């Protein structure tokens, strides 16, 4: 089933710094909720392992993430596919945009994803809420990394 989410966060940091941290595997690893490992690959991407809980379904997702349409330091598209074993799979992408604003940098994102397997069967009603919560958590962590709290 399909999941869509859009949102934005204003970060008290320079756009160039935000962009750098958005491309820093160590920062991403620290910010992605439940992330256990994240390594760069040769093709502008990462291989990640993250533990995710969605209602009654708890799973460790292994996934490959690729960055494309890179327009430094303004935007990129992050797309990937994660397998959570019997919990199912998630695949999709997000367009991430940065824009300098008075308070620092505005980051906006536009997510489109498909989920399947147990995630869809049991978690269908919860997916949007959980995804929003994870996004909020990510940006709270990310704001700390770039210094300060999100506005």
């Amino acid at each position, binding site marked *: 089933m*399909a999941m869509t989410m859009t949102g934005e966060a204003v970060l008290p940091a320079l756009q160039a710094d935000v962009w750098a941290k958005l491309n820093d595997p160590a920062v991403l690893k620290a910010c992605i909720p439940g992330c256990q490992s994240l390594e760069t690959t040769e093709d502008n991407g990462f291989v990640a392992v993250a533990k995710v809980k969605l209602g009654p379904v708890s799973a460790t997702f292994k996934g490959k993430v690729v960055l494309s349409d890179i327009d430094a330091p303004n935007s990129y598209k992050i797309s990937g596919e994660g397998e959570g*074993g019997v919990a199912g799979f998630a695949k999709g992408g997000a367009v991430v945009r940065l824009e300098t604003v008075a308070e620092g940098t505005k980051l906006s994102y536009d997510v489109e994803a498909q*989920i*399947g*397997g147990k995630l869809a*069967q*049991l978690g*269908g009603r919860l997916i949007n809420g959980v995804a929003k919560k994870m996004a909020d958590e990510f940006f709270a962590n990310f704001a700390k990394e770039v210094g300060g709290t999100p506005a």
Partner: protein
Amino acid sequence: MSATGIGAPVRRKEDFRFITGKGQYTDDINRPGQTHAAFLRSPHAHATIKKLDISEAQKADGVIAVLTGEDLAKDNVGGLICGWMIHSKDGSPMKAGSHPALAQGKVRYVGDHIAVVIAETLAQARDAVEKIHVDYELLKPVIDMAHATDSGSPVIHDVAPHNQVYDWHLGDKGATEAAFANAKHVTKLDIVNNRLIPNAMEPRAAIGDYDSGQDAFTLYTTSQNPHVARLVLSAFIGIAPEHKLRVIAPDVGGGFGSKIFIYAEETVCVWAAKKVGRPVKWTGDRTEAFLADAHGRDHITHAEMAMDDKGHILGLRVKTKANLGAYLSTFSSCVPTYLYAPLLSGQYNIPAIYVEVEGIYTNTAPVDAYRGAGRPEATFVIERMVEVAAREMGQDPAAFRRKNFIKSFPHQTPVIMAYDTGNYGASMDLALEMADYKNFGKRKRDSAKKGMLRGIGFSAYIEACGIAPSAAVGSLGAGVGLWESAEVRVNPVGTVEVLTGSHSHGQGHETTFAQLVSDRLGIGIDQVAIVHGDTDKVQFGMGTYGSRSGAVGMSAISKALDKVVAKAKKVAAYALEASEGDIEFKDGRFSVAGTDRSLAFGEVALQAYIAHKFSGQDLEPGLKEGAFYDPTNFTFPSGVHICELEIDPDTGVTRIDRWTAVDDFGNIINPMIVEGQVHGGIAQGVGQALLEGAHYDANGQLVTASYMDYCMPRADDLPNFDIGITTTPCTTNPLGIKGCGEAGAIAAPPAVINAITDALGHEQIAMPASPQAVWRAAQKSLHKLAAE
């Protein structure tokens, strides 16, 4: 009628063990050294398996074996079969794609079986399933049945390049077209019969056990027909020859059709038991039941009915697309064909009928028989059609039906069936009276004063039960005969064991079958044990489905009882030193006519076994007889259900206010059990009409895979039912029984939808008629009323 004989409302013997937790279900059974199986299922609706890596799973804690489709192929284990051959209009056989118990290179629905892990504990098996790595190449799934056969659609099975299993028809096309040419009024309707998930209370389970000393297998499984399971597993799948395979179906917690079929899981468990040298147990969880139990219904239909100027039906033509899912399940092919089209004449005298049915593959779970199987779909079509036709022609729906009722029997319909008997007008009369139809208008006005929309809906259903004469179904493509067997063993003390091929999984056979014996032999039901569900005890049987246990299973018992009584008379004649012709048997006593000399049934039984009074050359000792009964026709239960309901246009909530059910089941063995069957059937039918609906998203994910999203009926969704009975005994079996197991589920959906459309004043409402759907429709009606 004796206290426990035919017609007595005896409490169910089996209920004590069920309600005290003493039932023995498959999952309650544990074998020494037992291992546990967990299946890896596809999360994708349609994909090829590029690589299947089981190496990490094999090394996981507690894992004994990880088996795949490749192992099945190496052992020459055959695929699952569909046992009913349907031929298309052009004479070509249906296109049955192969159905391996574990995928071989391709998965075709979410939940499809890929591999099995067998481990010391269930937790270890489940953990190891996570360690199997599959590299899928995703294929575009085919989900929407309406467009599945379009050119350019992805191909699910290579043997069916357009995803069409068959393009079948029945009836006289020319005669039907001629009827339409003469019509004064034609009613046209598009009808969807929503997809259902059976949801038996007990999920499916299996234990495979292999005895290397005897080179013999035992399979414990949740089956409605253990002998058919053994036959298929032996003759087609090739697990073991029948004398080396024992199938036991112990207590089974509901089936509704979903446990007729032979599935991948039990096939794998019994095969794997020999491979690992230990018993292998699998118990499905509720998610697996949602995903991989065969679903039911799922038709898209366009129907047209032709009438003369008075409203007499001249002809009916029906075009149906039936979703059969990703694979052909055991009996799936016959459900939308021979269990559907021959029922489209309903209770009506329709001179010409022509039906076309396309069976279609989609990347969804297999679809097969579910309570009623084809007959609810047919009844929904014909009962919606007559209701709408009556409204369009400005006629009272009850009067319109009555005008078109078949009134003389036997009646040959234009679509195979020959109804032996019935009195449809009598059921209608009683139903109208019980429902207080004449004051409906007043109740409607009273509701309107409260701002509520009240509607009334009829369903005059017929079903074909007691399936069925073997020669007839054989000529229509069935791979098996549909007789039933019975053996009556009288013990020396006069107690009786009846071995039957009719499996009981909620129907109450242990009570009703014992009542028949009680009635015939004049002994109490506590003197009778009903033995079923074990292929080592019962020689053969065809199982329980299609409301056949009474009409066919009990008829076999009746035949065997006739033989027992005939033999006992001979024994009694010796024991009483009288001539056999003078022996009378009544109320459990054998007596010599015109004398006071008599023996009780138990005393004669003892005489049969001690054999002191006769020579073994004249009469064989013992008292045990068997019989096979093959019916000469289907049976045709019928009835009229009337649903009266109230809709709150502000919330869309539908409340069923009254339910009248008048059924003609022929002779009834136990009215209390029959009433229970009617209640349960109506509940399932109301569930289909108002609450239940399986839904796959465009990618083939089942999004109604839990009770959060798939709504089952509950007691508070239902009113008290007013049950009435009319009786025309079936003329084609010795007991005059027609069958009652599916009636409610067949009758209910059109009664509800006819009532809702009556309340709303227009015909467009799909099942399930959820509050949201009803609210939208109600708003439309209100706007229309306001405009007028």
